[in-house]
């Protein structure tokens, strides 16, 4: 199972589809062969149809579905990041740790920080692209999810940061307020909001620019109330954002 998990999703999907087609094709081909051997040519026609369908699915339909579900260009972007990010992962992590430790007037243990990179994902319908964010570093701090999660660029405080190109801050006074505003204000569905951690109360999204183009977002949250904006020295975080942009440029991630 651990070997399977290392295979990119697109390949895993293709292998699964191929396996199903081969197994189905084999079973019905064997059945057809038995019927032909018995001289039941009419009845052998039916399992032969299934063999034909399995072949059609394997050679034509599976490629279409795979391309639709895992557009090759998007998959290439992810594969590219998986190759390049490990080279600068330590430097990025150190920079984020340093930014987190520079916060004042709050319990650092309750703060988590990560970096989201802006990428383009491509539609297979009309070749258009749209922005999304990929979390490229595990959260530094006790809370938060693992890297390689994607975030829709229209949602959340990260999406707001992308649209405005400015630092964005949000505070929630209670879980009830969080539940309500995540749907009403931050474009998550009720199901999406329920999947996210509900303990955090204060958030900061800080844009990372490279040559005046927004390329990523430094994202912090705290389980304590009202940590942001006052806990942050903005110039310090601007510096971190510049260092991170340099690292990404050197590694040719952007």
């Amino acid at each position, binding site marked *: 199972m651990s070997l399977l998990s290392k295979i990119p999703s697109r390949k895993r999907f293709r292998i699964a589809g191929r396996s199903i087609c081969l197994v189905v094709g084999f079973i019905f081909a064997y059945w057809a062969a038995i019927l032909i051997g018995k001289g039941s040519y009419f009845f052998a026609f039916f399992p032969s149809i299934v063999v034909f369908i399995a072949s059609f699915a394997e050679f034509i339909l599976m490629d279409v579905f795979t391309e639709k579900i895992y557009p090759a260009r998007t998959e290439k972007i992810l594969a590219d990041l998986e190759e390049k990010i490990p080279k600068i992962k330590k430097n990025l992590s150190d920079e984020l740790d340093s930014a987190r430790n520079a916060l*004042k*007037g*709050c*319990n650092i243990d309750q703060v988590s920080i990560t970096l989201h990179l802006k990428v383009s994902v491509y539609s297979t319908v009309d070749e258009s692209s749209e922005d999304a964010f990929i979390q490229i570093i595990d959260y530094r701090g006790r809370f938060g999810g693992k890297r390689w999660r994607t975030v829709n660029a229209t949602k959340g405080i990260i999406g707001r940061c992308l649209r405005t190109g400015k630092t964005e801050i949000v*505070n929630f*006074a*209670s879980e009830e307020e969080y539940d309500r505003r995540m749907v009403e204000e931050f474009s998550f569905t009720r199901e999406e909001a329920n999947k996210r951690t509900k303990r955090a109360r204060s958030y900061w999204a800080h844009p990372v620019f490279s040559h005046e183009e927004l390329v990523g977002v430094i994202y912090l949250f705290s*389980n*304590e*109330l*009202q*940590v942001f904006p*006052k*806990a942050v020295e903005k110039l310090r975080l601007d510096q971190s954002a510049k260092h991170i942009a340099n690292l990404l440029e050197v590694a040719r991630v952007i």
Partner: protein
Amino acid sequence: MAAYDAIAGEYYDDFHKTCRNFDEATTVALQTIQSRIPKHGLVLDVGSGRGRCKEYLGIDTDRVVQLDNSTVMLKIQPRESSLLRVVHCAESLPFLDNTFCCVTAFLCDTFVGLNFLSEACRVLEQGGIFVGTTPSYEWGIALREELSIDFSKTRFITKNGNTITLSSILVRESQLIEMLTVAGFEKNNVEVTRDKLPQDVATVSDDIKLPAEKLGCSVYDIDIIYRMIAKK
């Protein structure tokens, strides 16, 4: 609906012994600072409830602006009179800079944070004083561990036996000092002290007995509130 709407009708009743014990501790904690409150100028009482500036600090009520995010709390009777009652959240105060000579916030655990403390500093005049109290971290954590409740929440059991859970932030003493400094108060002008239940209090809540027992001290030796004084 504001969080304290649900408990407002009985919050000040003797039934809620923990609250009354906090009142008793607060009365003693603030007695010694009455002389430090400026004699003239407006006073803002944040999270005022029924209003307690006269009770705790001897401030004339016609100087006091009471602010609370709960309309129900602001309408409780009997109450201390005031110059004005304002329904608003504490994190963003609807007043100009340098308006008040004193800002008070008694048992401000519902809203204590960098935003509120920064706002308190902002609306104070130069030389103005912030006076606040909040449940002590040691007491709160010990109790919430024993009751197996979320460390960021407090619970009230109503007269009807219902349990109401409300947000309540516990902050360590050292962090409170840092927060007041980050909020804009001069470090040398920030004091946070610990206060206990007075020895002459006969009726002690189980919510004080339980953590005292856990910490291995008497109910009169456990620090139950922090008192914050900060001068701008």
